[in-house]
């Protein structure tokens, strides 16, 4: 009579222990085959996620191009007169809305100011607003949202309700109320307002991706090894939860530059003597049919800037995913 569950331990559906041992020995030797002889010392230099990501990024043309654009933008924000020596405020109404001419490659705006000089000088404001607001939103949002996702409990409940409240505030109305009481003519109140209204979006995304990452067995495995909360967060959760935050933050960067323009157009953002792409886009938009160049140059600069940051974010995100290597 056959004994399907004999005590010398055959595993169903078939196969005796001996056959399995053979299979295992085979598997093991196959797995060892591709490498060199054993015990020939350590296999090269130890590598980590970040060093591998950096190696990968250095060879990625998308990263190089977007990086060069961003470096260029930062340089001309710091020293705009390097490539545009004129005065962005000098106006001659005789030249209003004129197209390009010698010495004025981008033409003139509705006030007769040189569009090229204004685009170059506006870089500082727009890049400052975009980069600072995005950094502020990303840091505040991912720290608060990440902690809420990791620890859960009452802090999570409170934070989720706070984000609900912020989602209920209309951006433009909020801007009118918040910024109309501020008298400073610098970009910082605008940056502060964007951070205040923008962080709940990132916080929600960060919370969600931290909760997803936290449920993975490797986080449980780290805890089972006795890892501290900070090790679990920094080594295991953050690298696996950061991708959606990078994507949303880089896309939001363009929105923030445009939001600065909207607020300036409403008269609560930057006040007139200030130069920014947003102000120029608002000024030029009524004349789009007669003199499109006035709109297209600052809008083009905005598009290139946003694209550079999105490409950078994309390249970094891909480099941090070993599966795509």
């Amino acid at each position, binding site marked *: *009579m*056959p*004994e*399907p*569950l004999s*005590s010398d*331990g*055959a*595993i*169903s*559906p*078939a*196969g005796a222990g001996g056959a*399995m*041992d053979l*299979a*295992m020995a085979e*598997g*093991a030797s196959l*797995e*060892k085959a591709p*490498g060199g002889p*054993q*015990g020939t010392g*350590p*296999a*090269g230099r*130890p590598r*980590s*996620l970040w060093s*591998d990501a950096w190696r990968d990024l250095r060879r990625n043309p998308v990263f190089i191009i977007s990086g060069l654009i961003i470096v260029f933008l930062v340089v001309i924000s710091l020293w705009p007169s390097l490539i545009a020596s004129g005065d962005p405020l000098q106006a001659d109404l005789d030249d209003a809305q004129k197209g390009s001419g010698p010495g004025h490659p981008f033409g003139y705006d509705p006030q007769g100011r040189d569009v090229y000089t204004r685009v170059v000088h506006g870089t500082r404001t727009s890049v400052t607003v975009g980069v600072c607001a995005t950094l502020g939103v990303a840091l505040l949002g991912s720290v608060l949202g990440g902690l809420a996702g*990791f620890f*859960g*409990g009452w802090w999570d*409940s409170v934070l989720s*309700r706070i984000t609900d409240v912020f989602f209920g505030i209309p951006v433009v109305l909020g801007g009118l109320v918040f910024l109309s009481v501020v008298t400073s003519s610098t970009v910082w109140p605008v940056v502060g307002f964007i951070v205040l209204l923008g962080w709940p979006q990132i916080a929600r995304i960060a919370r969600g991706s931290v909760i997803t990452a*936290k449920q*993975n*067995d*490797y986080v*449980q*495995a*780290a*805890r*089972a*090894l*006795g*890892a*501290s*909360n900070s*090790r*679990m967060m920094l*080594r*295991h959760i953050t*690298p*696996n939860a950061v991708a959606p935050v990078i994507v949303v933050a880089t896309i939001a960067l363009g929105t923030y530059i445009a939001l600065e323009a909207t607020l300036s157009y409403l008269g609560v953002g930057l006040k007139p003597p200030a130069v920014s792409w947003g102000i120029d886009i608002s000024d030029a938009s009524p004349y789009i049919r007669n003199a499109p160049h006035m709109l297209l140059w600052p809008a083009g600069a905005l598009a290139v800037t946003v694209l550079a940051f999105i490409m950078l974010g994309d390249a970094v995100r891909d480099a*941090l*995913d*070993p*599966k795509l290597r």
Partner: protein
Amino acid sequence: MADIDKEPVDATPNVTEVATVDAASEAEAVAAIDAPVSQGEPILQVRNLVKHFPLTQGVLFKKQVGAVKAVDGISFDLFAGETLGIVGESGCGKSTVAKLLMTLERATAGEVFYKGQDITRLSGRALKAVRRNIQMVFQDPYTSLNPRMTVGDIIGEPYEIHPEVAPKGERRRKVQDLLDVVGLNPEYINRYPHQFSGGQRQRIGIARGLALNPEIIICDEPVSALDVSVQAQVINLMGKLQDEFNLSYLFIAHDLSIVRHISDRVGVMYLGKMAEIGTDEQIYEHPTHPYTQALLSAVPVPDPEAREGRERIILSGDVPSPANPPSGCRFRTRCWKAEDKCATEMPLLAVPERFKGLDSPAAHESACHFAEEKDVVHAA
């Protein structure tokens, strides 16, 4: 019901509430934990372990409306050097037992004694010392390895958390030795988990579990996510490692044949309770609990002739909800032997009265009022 799914994975450790142990008794506990245990002595004693997951309602102000009784009072011993298999269907609380033994979840009640120390009440340094000695191999090799860490970092992480185990300069060497021990090429140290197959990944998980040289490894369905041919390789590897490192395994699975292959003793769980426990021969050849008999009668038999003659016990209905388990015997709603007594009196896990004093393999612990032997494995 959404809250039930969330609770078990809540990684928030609430260690502060038990941090009342003073430094002296903590040092004592660490010393006791580091002491060796001789072969055949109980190394882990589980007593009336209970885990209830609260069911809550409300968004901001949570109100408890009930509890999922995932594990409801189970007791067993794990002896040094043995393999104790735990079987049972999905949702019976097997994995929760594993998490409780790993202190990944805090027990609602009951004790787990490891070398005389109740690990459910330890914290800080003493808990860390326990974690060095009790390690775990996870079910799914695809989620148990961090996709963004190299194999070297994954297996080396235990040494970073417990730096006293290996000095910094030796860690890389040790990681490569471990890769070799589990049958992987030591040159793979800089690869990422996605570059490996399921079986190879599980070997990496086993290597991580072995890194701290633990005494107990809790295996939560370590092969159920793998192909059958690869299952055999991994199981045999685990058997080999047990001999080599004198490990005790708590082996959780739902595949009865695999459990029999690797286990010295087997416990059968149903709805948060232990139904029957005994040596593999006692459980597989002489089951006395009707649930065990039903489970065994469902094991596939590779011989068509033997299959035809055999009786299959087909249980009616589904497993009751662990949030609202039946009174008395948990199994009575699906049991063909159930009588009034089963609804009123909870059967205890003990050697049944009728087998007491008998020198028969049927005389092992079984939680049934009407325990009797029934040969369900062999053809009638």
